[in-house]
Every structure is written in C-alpha cells, then in structure tokens.
C-alpha cells in the first residue's frame, strides 16, 4: 500500500507540472501514455521530486521512471 503522504505530494507536483487533472494521476498512470508528458517534462518532474523529497535520483534510475507508481515506490525505498 502506497504511503498516502508521499502519494499526495507526488500528485501535487505532477498536477502542477503537467497541468493534468488530479483524478488522472493514478498509480498506474504512465507519464508519457496517460499524462501526455514528453521526455523533458519527465526530467523536470524528477528535478522537482529531488527538491521536494530532498534526494538525488541518478540518471539511470530516472530513466526507469515511467509511471506515477514508479515514482512513489522509488521515493518510498529511498527516502531518508
């Protein structure tokens, strides 16, 4: 079960950054397929997540991030 707090903070960033409806930001939503993000949007999103959660996401890990769920589980397993 996803941490509600992490999910809420991720949702807020995704909504602000991509200008999508909060209802569409589901765990299984793919950034590119469902949320209409391009590669640069994802890079920016990753940078904002780094700021928000105070962590560094390597380029290799960032490339694996495809869905909202990927972000949430990455943050849950890496947050300090």
């Amino acid at each position, binding site marked *: 079960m996803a941490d509600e707090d992490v999910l809420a903070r991720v949702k807020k960033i995704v909504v602000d950054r991509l200008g999508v409806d909060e209802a569409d930001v589901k765990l299984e939503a793919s950034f590119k397929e469902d949320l209409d993000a391009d590669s640069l949007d994802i890079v*920016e999103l990753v940078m904002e997540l780094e700021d928000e959660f105070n962590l560094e996401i390597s380029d290799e890990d960032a490339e694996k991030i495809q869905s909202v769920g990927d972000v949430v589980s990455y943050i849950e397993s890496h947050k300090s």
Partner: protein
Amino acid sequence: MGLEGKTALVTGASRGIGRAIAIKLAQLGASVIVNYSGNKMRAENTAAEIRSVGREALIWQCDVSDEKAVQEMVKESLAHFGHIDIVVNNAGITRDGLLMRMKEEDWDAVLDTNLKGVFLVTKAALRPMIRQKQGKIINVASVVGILGNASQANYVAAKAGVIGLTKATAREVASRGINVNAVAPGFIVTDMTDELPDEVKEKMKKDIPLGKPGMPDDVADAVAFLASDGSKYMTGQTLSIDGGMAMQ
C-alpha cells in the same frame, strides 16, 4: 544590454576571446566564473579586470572534457552565486596538421576539449537553467566550422559539431525559456592565431572582405548581445563575426 544581477560562466577565460568575453560581460554588470585549464596567472589577471569594474569573479580551474570536474565547477558556482544565467562555451585548443599525418591523440584531444567540453558544460548547466526557467548558452564555434580549412580536420570537425550541437540543444530547451546560440569568429588576433605561419596569416587576410583581422572584443560584443535580452527571439543561430569571410 544590461546584465546586472546575472551570473556568467565563461570557459577558457584566461586569455584571448574568452578573456575579452568575461570582461565584457562584467562591464555590462554580470558576475563571472572565470574557468581556465592551465594558466592560473592569466586567469587571475582576467579576474582582476572583472573586479576593477566592480563585479565579482570566481576563478575555477578545470578541464572541460572531464565530466566530474565540470559538474563540480557548476555545483560550486551555484553554491557561490545561487544561479547561473549565462554560459559561454569558449574553451578550445588546436593541434593542426594534415589529416594524413594527424595522430589519433591530436584528433581526440581537440574533439574532447572543443566539442565534448561544450556538451559536458551544457549538460551540467542546463539543470539549474531549467529550474530557473531562463538561461543563455553561447557556444564559440569558428568560421572554419562553416568553410572548412586544410590542416585543421580535427578543429573543423569539432567546430562544425559545435554548430550542430547548438541547434540540437536549442530545439531541446526552447520551450523552457533557454536560448542557445553560437558565434563563429573568423581570423581574430589572439595567441592561438599568432601561432599560425606568416603565409597562412597573409592568405587569410586576403580572404577577409573587411580587409583586416578582428579583435577579441569584436567577438565579445556579439556574445554580449546573445547574452542579453536583445536576442530573446533568437535561438539555434550561429552569428559570424568574421569580417565577411563566410556570408550565408
């Protein structure tokens, strides 16, 4: 063309065109990170000129073809100034010779500094610029990247590469308020061109419609324009500062 409150990183700023650019940007109000590779004394001299016009200068030694060192430079510059608004990729070297005699190491050295260096500094600086949603990247190419030049296969390939890299980068980040442009200097009076044989220099002068070599300041003026708001509707372009050698 005011650059008050801006921070500019200029690579290869200890002498020649880079030095003129660093000082010009400072005169217009920018704080400057003076990057150099080998000559600390001359980098300090550039920094002293910047301070004499009342601007802050941070001297930073690093080889632009070393990714870790470049990342460190950008990180420390950000820690010091809080933002980087202008990047001038100017650092460049020559290892001239006929292609058929050119050593692989001379090819690699020139491509590493003159092309890979631009990629690495741009990559590191784009992060803060994307965060800031604004930035100016100015790459120093060369007239020979447009026209070609015998005995400079490595340098020509690198500089033509810089022109292409400028366009690719410009397209990638245009939507983020970042302008990426290049200048292509012609025959400019610097230590680098001073090394050329006299007959080459004479021949080059004959090919210049304006009839004389340019000065580092001529290039710095164009870079200052590209660093300023006056060029806000330009991106992906290469401005020739060459007395008319390459007319497009």
